[in-house]
């Protein structure tokens, strides 16, 4: 197990700021593929405890008596510069994992909603939650062959607010993954540059 640690490039000693971006999407849509294509390390997996009720467990002493499960999630990282390290999390989009989202979203820069046009409805819940959390996001369409529907049709089908970027993506391609992240950060910059802080917090 220790070999997993040593196989991996350690962070620079100057690293001081961990940042987060969350990739959400339905099962099998390519979240881990996207994370892996831009990450400097092979995606790692870890888990968090959830009770059957879906809330984070509040007392581990009851683990043995309570029906408790764990939910796994993947992540990768990108060293941006001397100080900043960006962590990318792949979060399961299903409703029962909402408790995990709160933890992933807290302090996140923003989110990428990865969609499979054959299963657009899988994204509805995720988009709804993001809007509820006032978490800025972009939509990346991971094509699995074929070109229909168009991006505009996807926008309509998902009933996206104006201004939310919708882009094509091939989750397997590093450059494509990079473009998705750049699109998100540009979107954030524009969003925050023209919106006074008071408006967002009100």
């Amino acid at each position, binding site marked *: 197990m220790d070999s997993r*640690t040593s196989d991996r490039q350690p962070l620079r000693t100057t690293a001081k700021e961990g940042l987060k971006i969350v990739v959400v999407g339905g099962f099998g849509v390519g979240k881990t593929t996207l994370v892996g294509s831009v990450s400097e390390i092979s995606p790692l997996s870890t888990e968090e*405890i959830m009770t059957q009720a879906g809330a984070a467990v509040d007392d581990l002493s009851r683990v043995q008596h309570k029906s408790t499960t764990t939910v796994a999630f993947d992540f990768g990282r990108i060293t941006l510069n001397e100080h900043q390290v960006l962590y990318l999390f792949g979060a399961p989009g299903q409703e029962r994992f909402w408790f995990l989202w709160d933890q992933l979203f807290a302090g996140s820069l923003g989110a990428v909603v990865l969609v499979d046009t054959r299963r657009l409805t899988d994204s509805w819940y995720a988009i709804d939650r993001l809007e509820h959390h006032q978490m800025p996001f972009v939509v990346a369409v991971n094509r699995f062959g074929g070109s229909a529907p168009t991006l505009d049709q996807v926008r309509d089908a998902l009933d996206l607010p104006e201004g939310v970027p919708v882009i094509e993506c091939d989750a397997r391609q590093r450059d494509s993954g990079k473009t998705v992240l750049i699109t998100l950060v540009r979107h954030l910059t524009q969003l925050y540059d023209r919106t006074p802080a008071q408006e967002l917090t009100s």
Partner: protein
Amino acid sequence: MNPRPVDREDPDRLYVVTGGRSTADDTGLDLVTLIVSECEPSPGQQSEHARILGMCRTPMALVEISADLRLPVSVVRILLRDLLDMGRITVRHPASARSDAQRPDLETLKQVLLGLQNL
């Protein structure tokens, strides 16, 4: 991605490493808080504590420690809290946790953008 019973692994292990303590208190440790050891592992230490000190000779995010120890995030938080209380680690909190602001400042975003473009 599918939830699976903790019981299948080793529930006793989770109980033992945390001393059965609650995770309800807010440790203020985010998934991406970077942890740095302030001392070397020593004999007689709880093995998880010793392993964390060994891993964090260079900064390491909480979530990476969790992955390497194969322990859930909440359990790792408790272990880190212990080490923090004993002064054996220091933490580098994400900027977002340092202020009340719900959003990153523009300077941070500009640096992130530049970093991504340079990849």
